[in-house]
């Protein structure tokens, strides 16, 4: 039990270390990319270089991913601070969603099907063609 907790904490330390590296790169270079994404790329390169995922990193990352919804609650509750802004742009937002969501669904499915040859083109082209 204690062993598992220590492993998970060590894994978390690794993740925080990579995150800090990413943040540091971002602030040093002023790249227009979030530091967390840079940290993720560093970790990906590290894992590819190691050729495996150590059980420490695995248990640390499983912990964060399993509780991702919990981590995101405070940020999402911030919605309540922008009700007015949302009301001002409600129509734009609704229209954009109503158009782009079905559009990207069909486009993604159709394009991927064509690219990988898993679709009979005629089974879907006419319907997408109307958009």
């Amino acid at each position, binding site marked *: 039990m204690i062993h598992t907790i220590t492993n998970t904490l060590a894994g978390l330390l690794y993740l925080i270390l990579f995150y800090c590296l990413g943040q540091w790169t971002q602030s040093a270079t002023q790249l227009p990319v979030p530091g967390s994404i840079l940290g993720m790329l560093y*970790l990906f390169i590290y894992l590819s270089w190691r050729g495996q995922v150590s059980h420490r990193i695995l248990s640390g990352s499983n912990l964060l991913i399993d509780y991702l919804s919990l981590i995101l609650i405070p940020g999402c509750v911030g919605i309540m601070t922008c009700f007015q802004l949302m009301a001002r742009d409600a129509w734009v937002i609704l229209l*954009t969603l109503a158009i782009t969501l079905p559009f*990207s669904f069909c486009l993604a499915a159709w394009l991927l099907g064509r690219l990988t040859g898993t679709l009979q083109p005629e089974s879907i082209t006419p319907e997408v063609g109307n958009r």
Partner: protein
Amino acid sequence: MPSPLLSLSDAKPALLLLTAGVFVLSNLINKKLPCNGLSHPLTVSVLLVIAVLLVSGIPYQDYASANQPLDWLIGPAVVSLAVPLYRNLPIIKPWIGAILLTVVCCLIANLVLIWAITTCMDATDSSRIALSTKSVTTPIALSVNSLLKGNPALAAALVMVTGISGALIGPPLLKKLKINDPRIKGVALGFTSHAIGTQRAFQAGPVCGAIAVMTMILTAIIVSLIVPVIGPFLAS
């Protein structure tokens, strides 16, 4: 707003416990309900917390500062996505080029559409930036929006709305188009409705789910590479 519960806002641990308690409760609710975007634990939790804060009159700032420890974990959580990315690579290796090309093309088409609509309808800058990150997973949307000086809270709201509506309309739409390949379904769900779509994709099987996770992560990477560069243009 005076409130008998206002003294609670001095007790930061209580507000942190509120988040944890609501999370446990919403997971229980999620097990009872049919699985779609609306019953996702995050959706239920956020609605419950907002309801509690509105009823008790506790300002959001108090709640946010009490829950800051959770915010600190968002960055490391993004980093930890490298692990499923690395582990699922063999599953999608034959498709990776096609998936990347699909994500890039669809994203650019989307951004052009969003730019056109928001320009025609004279939207505010923060809505424009927030709309451009609407189909990406919340932690990335938060960091891209704060990088671009947008409104992260609005971005989080739009991400959630997009995720829920994508998971609701997507699968019936694909059925109508007679697309049954789980891999295509996974990519479409992961691209449009991020984590909420991913949860939906796992119902269609592990392959569909794994591909949805991969697509979600690839979309996150590509959005965070493209949107900050064109962001100033979007907001002009």
